[in-house]
Each structure stands twice: as C-alpha cells, then as structure tokens.
C-alpha cells in the first residue's frame, strides 16, 4: 500500500510536469485587426502569409510593392496577434528577433508607440501593414481578413 502511494505521488508529479510542458491552448483570435494601406488591392492573407510578412521572410506584395511591416505597442492586441498569427507568445517572437539581431541577419520591424501611430503609418505608406486593437478606428485604412 505504501509503495502504491509513492507510485501514485510519482505519477501525479510526472503528470503535473507533463501538463506544464504541454502547449497552452491557443488564444481566441479576436482582440486585434490587421490593417493595410487603403490602396493595397489585397483583401485577405492566410495565417502563414501574415506570419512570414511580420517575420520579414516575405518582403513583397503580389504587385511587387515592398512590404513595410510595423509592430504595435505592448498590449493585449499584440499578444493576441502573436498567438493567433505566429502561434507563439509575443515574448517568443521577441526572442526570435534577438536571435536574428545577434546572428547579424537583420532587425525586427519598427515598433510604434500607439495604435494611432500604427494607423497613421499604414495610412501614409502604400506597402505598409500593421495590427491594432479591435476597438481602434480604422476608417482611413483597409482591414485585412486573416484566415487560418
């Protein structure tokens, strides 16, 4: 009986560790909007395309315009965007960029201080793409649909 209790404790401890190491459930996809310049003919992107653009692995729109991605400020919207589009926490994406920087391979997209700054930038640059909180007014830009 004593051995059984120890075995049960070990099993419980093992299960707890495995539980901690399992991937966390994906966050809901709401909370942010991906925005592009109003003149950009693109209407939707799938998740991988969007991720490639913000990781600067894809640098041109279909019409040849240079992609100018811009990150938003630290916010729940950024966390939701990161989880939904990159499949990782915002902190993991930051670690990715640190690796890129210190291997000398590039720098992350510029980071804007507020959602309004993101909107202003996207509005004034034809190749720009960014993301903002769902509640942000997006009258002057186009909201892009991101598909799974």
């Amino acid at each position: 009986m004593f051995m059984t209790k120890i075995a049960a404790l070990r099993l419980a401890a093992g299960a707890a560790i495995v539980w901690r190491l399992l991937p966390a459930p994906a966050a809901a996809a709401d909370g942010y909007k991906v925005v592009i310049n109003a003149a950009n003919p693109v209407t939707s992107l799938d998740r991988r395309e969007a991720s490639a653009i913000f990781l600067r692995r894809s640098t041109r729109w279909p019409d040849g315009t240079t992609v100018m991605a811009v990150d938003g400020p630290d916010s729940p919207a950024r966390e939701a965007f990161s989880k939904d589009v990159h499949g990782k926490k915002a902190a993991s994406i930051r670690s990715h960029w640190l690796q890129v920087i210190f291997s000398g391979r590039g720098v992350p997209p510029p980071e804007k201080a507020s959602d309004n700054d993101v909107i202003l930038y996207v509005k004034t640059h034809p190749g720009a793409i960014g993301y903002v909180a769902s509640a942000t007014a997006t009258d002057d830009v186009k909201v892009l649909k991101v598909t799974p």
Partner: protein
Amino acid sequence: MKLIRRELLGLFLGLTAGTRAAAEAPAAPPAENERKLEVHGFLSQAFAISDGYQVLGIPSEGTFDYRTAALQLRATLTAKDSIVIQVGQARLGESPIMAVRNEIDLDWIFYERQLGAGTSVRVGRIKIPFGIYNEIRFVGPLLPFFRPADAFYGEGSYVFSSINGAALSKSLFARHRFSVDADLYAGEWSFVQGDPELQQIAGATRARARGLGGQLWLNTPLDGLRFGVGGDRSTWSNSVEAPPGVKVRHKRWVASVDGNFERFRLSAELGEHTSPGVLFASSYVLVSGHVTDKLSVNLQASRSHVKLDLVLAQLDDEIGRDYAAGLSYAFRPDLVAKVENHWTRGRNFEEPGVTIFSPALSADYVILSLSALF
C-alpha cells in the same frame, strides 16, 4: 585545390552578378521609420569552479574571469544595404588559450545588401552559418547553458566561428507550409591550433583554412520545428598535422533537428569532421522545459569521438563525454540567470595536460552566470 578555386570563383561571380543586378535599381534612402543606426550588445558574467582537474579554463579554486560580451552597431545606409560591426570579449578563466587570445576581438564586420525576394548577400567577416548555435554561440540570454555543447561547437582551440569572405542567404517558399532557408559561404578562416602531442595551446600557431560551405534549413508546418543539414570543405595550410608547406583537405558536415516550442525545446545535432586519416565525430541532445514563463529546466548530453588511422598513430576512442543539468531563470527575455552542473569525462582537460592517448579523466564543474542584452 583547383576544384575549390573554381567553386570560389563561381560563387564570387554569382555574388558579383547578383549585387550588380540589384544595384541597377536606384537605392532608396532608409524608410522614415527605419532606425539608421542601431546599437545592441550582450554580456554574460560567470563564476565557474571545478571539483578537480581543470577543464575549459575552470580551475578547482574557481574563477570569476569567465565572461562573454559584445557590442554591435548596425548602420542602415539605404533601405537595401547596411553595414554591421561587432566587437567582443571572451574570457575563459585559466585556459591556456588566454595567452594567445586578444583582449578585444572583432567578431564580425560586413556589408549587407538585400537583393530582393528574401535574398541577401554579406561581404566581410561573417559568422559561419553552421548548425543551430554557431552564429549566437556567445549570446548568453539566448542559450540554455553558458555555452552551446563544447563537444560539438568546440571551445578554445580549433574553433571556426567566423569567415572572411562572403555569404549568400536565400529564403524560399516563405508563404508555404514548408519553407527553406539556405546559406552559401566561401572564404578564409583562421584558428588557434594546439600541439598535437601535448594538446597545449600556449605557443601554438594559427592555422589558416580556405574553403566553402552551406547550410540548409527546412521549416515545417509545425511551428518551431525545423531540420537542418550543412557542411563545408576547406584546405588547411600551416597546420600542425602536416609538414610545412603541405596543404591538407578537410570536410565537415552537420545534421540538425531543432524543435523550439512554447513549453519546451528539443535540439539534437550530429556532425563529422574528416581529414586524411582522421575522423572526428560529435553529437549532443538538448532538452529544455519551460516549467513557468520564467523558469526553465535544461538537460544536455554530448560526446565526441576520434578515429585516427595514421602511419604513426592508431586510435578509435572517445575524446569527451559531458552530461549537464541546469536551471535558468529569465527575469525578462533580456536578463537571465543560470546555474548548471556538468559531469564531464574524457581527454579534454588542461590540468594536468593530457593527450588523446592518455587515460580518460573525469571531473564535475559548476557555472553560475548572469546574462543580459539590449
């Protein structure tokens, strides 16, 4: 040698043509939101102590002279080209290599040109894109332990981390489920070599290698999982393994699997380095579990093996074996404290000086470190 020269010439012509084609387009100034000059840096300061024999510069009385640090400047000249320079310091305690290592070294300096469609070329002194960790081998906050597995990546002598030459990088199928990152590099590198009899570094010479190689990564639909293969071949001159004036052909290859997930990381690499009559094989497995957002448990096993089939020496034996366990605590992604214990056995000890023909020794060593970057 003729073959290598021909390939180097081909690569050079290819790079020149690519750069010229890219240069035909007018160079736009940096976008208004691009930073023209970026400054980055990192520091890992450690205390390390061995319970017996000295290994990796770690004496039994301990040392605080154990550090890696660098300062990096990136100047964006136009939207397509930039210049990057990084100077660094690597202190290795009581290691004999400190007698021949500069206080400050130029890690890299290169000109980079974006050629469009995920293609870029770098010319100058460049970190060799070899395996998972070579390009970030000293960047403490990005590493589970103080250093990548030394049995695989080396430490001190016979370390080939940077190349003077050129590298062409290309990302393929970036918007697809599977994507590929490819690097091709060519040029020359030099390294400190030890005395083959005594494995003593002090007073040893620098050897020079000239060659070319590549690294290929396949990124899978499972976010964070990638597979890599790479390798290079080179011709060494001024090498202690051959009489003066005689050049020796070397080859290396590496196979990697790297799974970097939300809650854990699993990395494993296997490689071989061959030259006439010599086969050096090494491998490691690393598992890192993120118990909380800040605390990680890290485990690593590594080994290296040599097979000599020379006129004067025959050997087929293990050079080193290391088991490591550690904890790392990330106060923030850019500030990490680590404690790690290594159980190491083999013929890679500095005190007492051993040769690869000596009986294997063993020791435990501990490294406490704090790493920061900006």
